[in-house]
C-alpha cells in the first residue's frame, strides 16, 4: 500500500523547502543561511540558474538561482579547493550539485516511500518563472539563493 502523502498544504511544502535547503547547506556546505522570505523576485548579480526535473508519484521541477560569487564560495567550501580554481563552468557544477541535493532532500521529506527519478541538474537561461511554483529565497554570506518548486500537476486533493 503506498505511503500516505504527509504534506497537505502549500505552506507545508514551503516549510519543507526551507528545511531541505538549510539542512543541505549546513551539513554539506558548512554554511550559515537565513531565510529571506516567500515569493517575490530578487535581484542577483551575475546569476547562475540551474534546474532539474523529477518524475514518479510526484512530477515536477526544482529550479535554483544564485550568484556566481556565492556558487564559487559554496563550491570552494564543498571541495576544499581554492576559489580561484572555480571558473564559471565549475560554479555552475557546484550550483547543480547543491540543487540536486536540495531536491533529493526535499522529495524524501515529501514522499519518503516513493520511487522518484531525477534528471541531472542543468543550467537554464529561462527568465520566466515556473508556472504555479512556490518560491522561497535565502540569504547566504556571499549573496542570495532562490528556490522555485513546481509540481505538475499540484495534487488537487491536497495542495492549494
Amino acid at each position, binding site marked *: 500500500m503506498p505511503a500516505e502523502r504527509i504534506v497537505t498544504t502549500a505552506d507545508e511544502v514551503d516549510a519543507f523547502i526551507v528545511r531541505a535547503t538549510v*539542512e543541505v547547506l549546513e551539513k*554539506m556546505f558548512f554554511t550559515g543561511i537565513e531565510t529571506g522570505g516567500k515569493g517575490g523576485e530578487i535581484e542577483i548579480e551575475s546569476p547562475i540558474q540551474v534546474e532539474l526535473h523529477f518524475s514518479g508519484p510526484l512530477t515536477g521541477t526544482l529550479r535554483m538561482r544564485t550568484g556566481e560569487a556565492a556558487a564559487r564560495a559554496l563550491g570552494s567550501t564543498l571541495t576544499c579547493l581554492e576559489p580561484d580554481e572555480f571558473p564559471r563552468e565549475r560554479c555552475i557544477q557546484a550550483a547543480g*550539485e547543491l540543487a*540536486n541535493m536540495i531536491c533529493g532532500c526535499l522529495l524524501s521529506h515529501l514522499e519518503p516511500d516513493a520511487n522518484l527519478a531525477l534528471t541531472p541538474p542543468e543550467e537554464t537561461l529561462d527568465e520566466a518563472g515556473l508556472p504555479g511554483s512556490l518560491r522561497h529565497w535565502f540569504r547566504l554570506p556571499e549573496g542570495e539563493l532562490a528556490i522555485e518548486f513546481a509540481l505538475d500537476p499540484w495534487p488537487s486533493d491536497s495542495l492549494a
Partner: protein
Amino acid sequence: MGLRVLIVDDSPLMRTVVRRIMELSGVDMDVCSEASNGQEALDWLLSEPVDLVLTDINMPTMNGADLLREMKQCGLLARIPTLVVSTDATDHRIHDMIELGANGYVTKPFSPESLRDELDRVLGDVHAG
C-alpha cells in the same frame, strides 16, 4: 596497506568531494580512482584490483543499480564492498540498492562523520564476514 578505492559519479565535483571527505575522515587510501558512470567503473573493476566502490545511482550510460547488478553476476566483483552515495533518501531506493548487493548507503547531504561511520561499518562487516 591502504585501500584501493573506486569513486563512481557522473559529477566530477562530487567525485572530488567524496575523495576529500574520505581523506579528511582519515580513511587510509593507497589508490583512489574515479569513473563517471557504471560502465567505466565496470571496465576498471575488470582490469584493476579494487577494495571498495563508492557509487552514485543516477548516471548516464550505466546507472548505479545496473553496476551493482553486473557486479553481483560476476563472482569476483560480487565480493567487493560497495557503498551507495546518493541524494535519493527514499526507503524504496535504499531497499532496492541493498537488495542488489550494496553493503551500505549514505544519503547526500552527509557529514564527514556519517560517511566515516558507514565506511567503518561496511568494511567491518566485510572483514568480519
